[in-house]
């Protein structure tokens, strides 16, 4: 579904990703772990199409098409979704209006019929129930005055509503208490599907106790330096990232 080859990305003149390669199949959950500054968030932002990230080499192919050639909204319509590490507050834009506009814009771009407000609200209520979210969230402006946990849950709610085919979760666990973490994980697990893939970017192993990945990668200094099954996350938790760095030095020697 997603094939990243030798990706080099520069941000503000500084090279952050230095030859990252990743192959994600439909139905899989990939976890990307790594120390601060390794380039984890850069990866998510590049895949979603944020400006200011200069791809200097490499390629990203999504369902056989060049993902990097698409505008952010085209990527969304093609099924790519980024759950933001820091969801943006947008005063004055009502959450329901925003969600419906996004939902219908994607459908329109795919040549599917748009939903009217009744049909849309019905769908929204179904998804709210699954995530145990309050209706009240819908009447507020997008993320405005939301607590950290509410913002993250709103991201997962959008994920559930928009039903993307490739979901990237950028440190969705940061700033969450254990109850909110479980709720987020439940939301994600309910969405696991043979046709859908997840890339879960995280600093800690904790989230992966609840969202069990098929593959775990360690990202350090702009590259994937180690890949393995779910047990790799536990080894990291035990030994710390320094352990990976030592193994790399040993391998190079």
């Amino acid at each position: 579904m997603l094939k990243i080859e030798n990706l080099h990305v520069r941000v503000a003149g500084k090279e952050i990703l230095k030859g990252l390669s990743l192959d994600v199949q439909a139905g899989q959950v990939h976890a990307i772990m790594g120390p601060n500054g390794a380039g984890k968030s850069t990866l998510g932002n590049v895949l979603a199409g944020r400006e200011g990230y200069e791809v200097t080499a490499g390629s990203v192919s999504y369902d056989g098409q060049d993902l990097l050639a698409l505008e952010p909204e085209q990527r969304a319509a093609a099924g790519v979704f980024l759950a933001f590490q820091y969801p943006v507050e947008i005063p004055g834009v009502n959450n329901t209006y925003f969600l419906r506009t996004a939902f219908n814009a994607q459908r329109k771009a795919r040549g599917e019929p748009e939903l009217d407000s009744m049909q849309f609200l019905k769908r929204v209520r179904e998804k709210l129930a699954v995530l145990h979210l309050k209706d009240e969230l819908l009447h507020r402006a997008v993320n405005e005055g939301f607590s950290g946990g509410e913002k993250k849950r709103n991201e997962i709610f959008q994920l559930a509503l928009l039903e993307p085919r490739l979901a990237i979760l950028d440190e969705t666990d940061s700033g969450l208490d254990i109850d909110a973490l479980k709720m987020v994980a439940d939301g994600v697990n309910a969405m696991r599907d043979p046709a859908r893939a997840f890339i879960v970017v995280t600093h800690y192993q904790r989230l992966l106790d609840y969202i069990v990945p098929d593959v775990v990668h360690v990202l350090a200094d702009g590259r994937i330096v180690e890949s393995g099954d779910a047990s790799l996350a536990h080894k990291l938790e035990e030994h710390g990232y320094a352990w990976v760095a030592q193994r790399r030095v040993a391998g190079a020697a």
Partner: protein
Amino acid sequence: MEAALLDELGGADTPERAEAWRYSRNALRALAQMSFVAADPDLALAPEVCAQFAWPHTQGRRLVFINGRLSGAHSDLRDEGIVVAADAGTIHIVDAARPLHLVHIGVPGANAARWQTTLDLQVSSARASLIEQHIGVPGGDLLGVFDLHIQVAERAALDWVVLSELGEQAALLRRVKLGMAGQSQVRRSDALFGGRLQRLELGVELAGAQARLESRGTFVLRGREHAEVRLDVRHQARECACDVLWRGVADQRARGIFHGGITVEPGADGSDARLSSKNVLLSALAEIDTQPVLEIHADEVQAGHGATVGQIDERALFYLRSRGIPLEQARRMLVAAFCAQALGAIGDDGLRERIDALAQARLPSPDAAQ
């Protein structure tokens, strides 16, 4: 004529007048180079112009002026709560639960034309409501000068929505003097669109104790449009309050100026003065200047002001796009939300939606953007 116009409207004879016209002098000078004839008040209105003001919910309470003169054919006033003097120069809102709709239309003729008029309005109702609308019909050079004197009596309250929509060859200078007696309340919401030069001078005297003014407003400009808003709010009695919140948007080569002057005069103790002016530029060639000027000469005054000029929030724009909303639609949503901060106070839903739609319609398509 040229020199006279410059001198009359924006003369540089005193340093104060020179300063007050600093940002709009060139736009005024361009006007002064034209030869104006007196605008014809008997010109017919095209159906689409009538449709702009013939709102069903203000039927029976509408006064229409064409090129400065009251039009009997288009006016429609049956409400007993509104008393109009024979020459229509003086209007008295005694008791009106429903709004008075005041419409001023500038209609261009074959030559550059000019109109000028003065209106006196007295408000003694505790629930008066006024919709003031200015239309500058496109198609020819036009200059309107409108002086409005409003006196709001003790304990009276006025809810006032002002909408001006001008064609690109229209210029409109409005000089509003608002006097407020003790415990009176005025809530004014302005929306300014279009015009080669539109200038709103809003002078307010909070003359009686505990008078309260709320001024909300927005301007949305594009092309080479030029708008200047100048507020001069004077706290003259104890415990008065003013709360000023304006939002400006300029695209392409448009130019906006907001001057928010609030003076708390000696003896106006216990005043509360708030001012917020935020502005967004949608193009590198657009320009907005904002100047909050607070002068305080009294004691126990609470005052706060903030003024910014910036770009549209790129993070918010990317957030909307990442969810599938196309760039232009995302821009419109953000600009509409920005203006809505100033228009949210309009209680009349239909009117607010109408103004929202006008603001959105004035954002250019991507190919027209610079």
